[in-house]
């Protein structure tokens, strides 16, 4: 890891004048009266009192940085990056800094509750845990008796989702467990990668940032999508002089740092990639030796892209042909230390697997995979699972931290003989369970009834497109239980609400992170749970014990579970603590680490430029540009993204983060705004093509966006009175996403197919 070599530490200046080894200050002019040191658990220096320092894994966003938490006299005060953690490396983003405030949010759910009013009314009575858990268990067993185990859907998000969407669901026997991080986010990226080079991209994109020389970001917003490690790596690479190409309809924070900004017409990225391939192949700029040794299908690909010249792409992408060629050349000049970065949220237009595949084919031509400065191979952690009996059904919830799994030809069946209800193999080819495709079966009973839902940490109405349909499903279900920290809008639709302790108040299963240097990270509580809240693992276990799943919950405490797993690497919780909260293992990042064996887990052991698998399934074996629908007159394409201060729809109410960024804006091109007669700072309503309307949202009239699209940060526009700070602030993009386009390969829900107009009436 390339760290800045400054002669001072950014972490702390320990008093006392001891100069330690290589970190000592070496300025020719300055003498030093303080030396450097690293923050550690033994080094509680910034506050008086009974100071406790604990290790944790941040849960404010799904990147999962290792952190050090400082508790003073029982009050959690400050969170910093854990210097030993390969992701945080001692640093932390704004969201992570907001963790303390997330925990002490007075709006938190405080007690188990059972519904007393109509569904959606938000009327509940507080009950004991015993009462609530007995109630849930009875309801679940009733659904099982009537409809079978498969009639239960389990949706999970945030860092305890394993206990519900994986462990409980598989033990119970339902294949209908899903995570939004799959089909509402990453599925196209990871399915396309598996089809192309045999492994998923994984939660931590394996970009060899330390020595990369040229890279392309497509709709990827480092700095706005505040992944701590990526911001560190990007800043270092950019400062080192690596060439930065940003393809985005919007002049994002990272576009402002780029050497080349390509303000592409939304939905045309595949055309750009095809033209780049055309340039690389027709001008013989690709890595011929690598392509010969490690890929299959060059001849077909060359013939396929022959007609896709920069001139052809210019007419589609709205980019100058010369710029298309020039940027292809920049990538070629720097290969193999050049890569199109996979990005994260990629469910855009419904053809997303093919678009992602087109970026991987560019990378393959550049000889990127397994090369220094390109894309390395992630290695999985060596660590035993906790010994359990075989699960009742093998699940496929996926998720951004899932290990790359084998796609089985036969779909696993639940105890009453039913496979997943999301239409896999029919409406789409493969991949993890598609959450949005489980909503219809709740309403229609087709292909079979889903009658109950466990929702853990998912904001059902601000993540799944077409929230009106989701409400219809919530009305139709026999039973809904929501496990959460905050009174998010869907809580009002639950029959039982179980309040969870935050990540700062609980132990958690270990994190096993596939990485250049695979590592294990731990979480321990920094304070006792506030109110009458309980950890997710405890809730999962208590439910399991009540519904006859005792064999899967033979452990009594989570510490016991963790220690048992750590035996396989000769460690323990105490030992991990002593080691700084992290165990780092050795990786195999490059081709040469495989001693001639293929690191590509495809049938041929090679990268599939031409995909037989796709051809057999009736899909294009090589990516084809498919136009997406244009906005109707008077409408703009609705694009959405992230604020560096907020995560999904989860943190808008967090006091410190709300204070910094209380509401979102709608970015409109200045000229387009002028034509509409709206000014910067005006409030408008947004209305989509189906008449769905947002609340009032402030206009940001800016040069930073094309005139055919508008942009907003996701997650605002809450409609839940219990969120006293966030309720009614800004607009919800999800509410305006009444449509989505299903990716026929991965089951991803393309959400950038909605259009809005600005309406000054009703503000």
């Amino acid at each position, binding site marked *: 890891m390339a760290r800045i070599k400054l002669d*001072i530490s950014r972490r*702390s200046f320990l008093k006392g004048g001891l100069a330690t080894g290589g970190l000592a200050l070496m300025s020719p002019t300055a003498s030093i009266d303080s030396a450097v040191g690293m923050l550690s658990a033994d080094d509680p220096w910034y506050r008086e009192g009974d100071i406790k320092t604990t290790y944790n894994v941040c849960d404010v966003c799904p990147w999962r940085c290792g952190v050090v938490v400082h508790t003073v006299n029982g009050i959690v005060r400050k969170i910093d990056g854990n210097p030993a953690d390969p992701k945080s490396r001692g*640093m932390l*983003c*704004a969201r992570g800094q907001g963790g303390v405030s997330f925990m002490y949010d007075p709006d938190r759910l405080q007690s188990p509750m059972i519904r007393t009013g109509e569904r959606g009314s938000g009327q509940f009575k507080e009950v004991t845990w015993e009462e609530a858990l007995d109630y849930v268990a009875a309801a679940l067993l009733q659904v099982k008796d009537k409809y079978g185990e498969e009639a239960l859907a389990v949706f999970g998000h945030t860092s305890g989702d394993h206990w519900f969407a994986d462990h409980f669901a598989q033990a119970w026997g339902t294949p209908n467990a899903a995570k939004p991080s799959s089909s509402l986010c990453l599925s196209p990226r990871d399915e396309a990668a598996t089809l192309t080079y045999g492994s998923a991209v994984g939660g931590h994109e394996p970009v060899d940032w330390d020595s990369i020389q040229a890279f392309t970001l497509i709709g990827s917003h480092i700095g*706005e999508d*505040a992944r701590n490690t990526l911001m560190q790596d990007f800043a270092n690479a950019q400062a080192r002089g690596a060439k930065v190409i940003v393809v985005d309809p919007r002049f994002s924070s990272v576009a402002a740092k780029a050497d080349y900004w390509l303000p592409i017409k939304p939905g045309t990225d595949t055309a750009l990639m095809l033209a780049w391939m055309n340039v690389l192949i027709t001008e013989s700029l690709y890595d011929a030796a690598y392509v010969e040794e490690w890929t299959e299908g060059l001849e077909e690909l060359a013939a396929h892209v022959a007609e896709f010249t920069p001139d052809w792409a210019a007419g589609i992408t709205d980019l100058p042909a010369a710029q298309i060629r020039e940027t292809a050349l920049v990538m070629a000049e720097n290969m193999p230390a050049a890569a199109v970065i996979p990005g994260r949220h990629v469910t855009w237009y419904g053809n997303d697997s093919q678009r992602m595949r087109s970026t991987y084919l560019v990378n393959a031509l550049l000889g990127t995979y397994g090369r220094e400065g390109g894309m390395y191979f992630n290695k999985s952690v060596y660590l035993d699972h906790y010994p359990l009996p075989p699960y009742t059904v093998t699940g496929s919830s996926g998720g951004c931290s899932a290990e790359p799994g084998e796609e089985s030809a036969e779909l696993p069946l639940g105890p009453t003989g039913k496979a997943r209800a999301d239409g896999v193999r029919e409406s789409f080819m493969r991949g993890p369970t598609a959450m949005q495709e489980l909503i219809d079966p709740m309403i229609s009973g087709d292909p079979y009834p889903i009658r109950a839902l466990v929702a853990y940490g998912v904001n059902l109405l601000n993540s799944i497109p077409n929230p009106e349909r989701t409400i219809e499903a919530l009305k139709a279900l026999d039973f809904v239980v929501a496990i959460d920290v905050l009174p998010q809008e869907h809580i009002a639709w639950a029959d039982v609400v179980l309040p969870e302790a935050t990540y700062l108040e609980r132990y958690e299963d270990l994190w096993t992170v596939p990485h250049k240097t695979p590592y294990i990270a731990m979480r321990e509580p920094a304070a006792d749970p506030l109110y009458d809240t309980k950890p997710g693992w405890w809730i999962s276990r208590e439910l399991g014990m009540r519904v006859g799943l005792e064999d899967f919950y033979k452990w009594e405490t989570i510490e016991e579970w963790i220690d048992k797993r750590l035996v396989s690497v000769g460690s323990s919780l105490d030992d991990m603590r002593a080691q700084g909260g992290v165990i780092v293992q050795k990786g195999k990042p490059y081709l040469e680490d495989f001693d001639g064996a293929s690191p590509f887990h495809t049938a041929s052991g090679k990268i599939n430029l031409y995909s037989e698998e796709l051809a057999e399934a009736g899909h294009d074996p090589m990516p084809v540009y498919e136009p997406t629908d244009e906005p109707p007159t008077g409408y703009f394409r609705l694009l959405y993204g992230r604020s560096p201060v907020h995560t999904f729809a989860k943190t808008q109410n967090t006091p410190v983060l709300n204070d910094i960024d209380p509401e979102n804006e709608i970015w409109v091109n200045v000229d387009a705004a002028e034509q509409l007669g709206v000014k910067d700072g005006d409030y408008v309503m947004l209305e989509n093509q189906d008449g769905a309307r947002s609340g009032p949202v402030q206009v940001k009239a800016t040069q930073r966006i094309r005139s055919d699209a508008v942009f907003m940060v996701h997650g605002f526009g809450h409609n839940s009175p219990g969120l006293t700070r966030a309720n009614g602030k800004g607009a919800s993009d999800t509410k305006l996403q009444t449509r989505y386009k299903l990716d026929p390969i991965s089951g991803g829900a393309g959400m950038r197919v909605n259009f809005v107009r600005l309406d000054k009436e009703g503000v």
Partner: protein
Amino acid sequence: MEYAFLLDLGRCIGCQACVASCKVGNELGEGQQYIELIEKTNGEFPNLTGGWDNHRCFHCADAACVTVCPTGALFKEDGLTRLERDVCSGCSYCTEACPYDIPVMYEGKSSKCDGCAATVSAGGSPWCVGTCPSAALEYGPREVIQAEAHKRAEAMRDRYPNAHVYGETQAGGLGLLVVMPDDPELLDIPIDPKTPFMADAWQKVVQPAAVGITLGTAVLAGAAAVISRRNHEQEMVVIEAEGLVRDSEKSEEG
């Protein structure tokens, strides 16, 4: 020893980690921030440049806020401008005097970055610096920071030909040295920060006269009139430090 911050605007990507860490670490109140990041854009689509104005204390050597502070709540120490809020009387002169428009009144008292005095004296580094993911912030002995700033400016000239170090001459030298990729005015940071009339008047008129309470009060009343007029006009009434000549063009723009 003099200490200084380094702020590298070639690296800053506007992630607000510094803002949040500062708020949490210093336990700032609702609506209180010592750092504000302001997005700046220049040019017309698609020929744009942009960056982040880090609106935060520059720690001037000739600190106008310190000059006008009647209670000593604002003072210089280790090259930085400290603020003891307990001592602040709430006169708000500092908010008028600052050439960078940094201090604000929060709950009746001045509010601005104090260089994390308490944290640093306890052995830590300033909260913003400790957390910055893009390593755009550093803190250390001024000479080390100065050398690092020049090294970074030099290294980024391939990409940013006008890169330079900002803050070596402004306001007697700043305790926040900025690695500036281009013209600071593109980020609305003044090349030549002007000390407004208030500070100058205080130094030349009020302080010498302060022995006489009556006279001092009279001048303070005059100063208050200037403040209220400025507030009314919603803009800086800049009086050139030497000539005491009102910049009429500027006031008419408002």
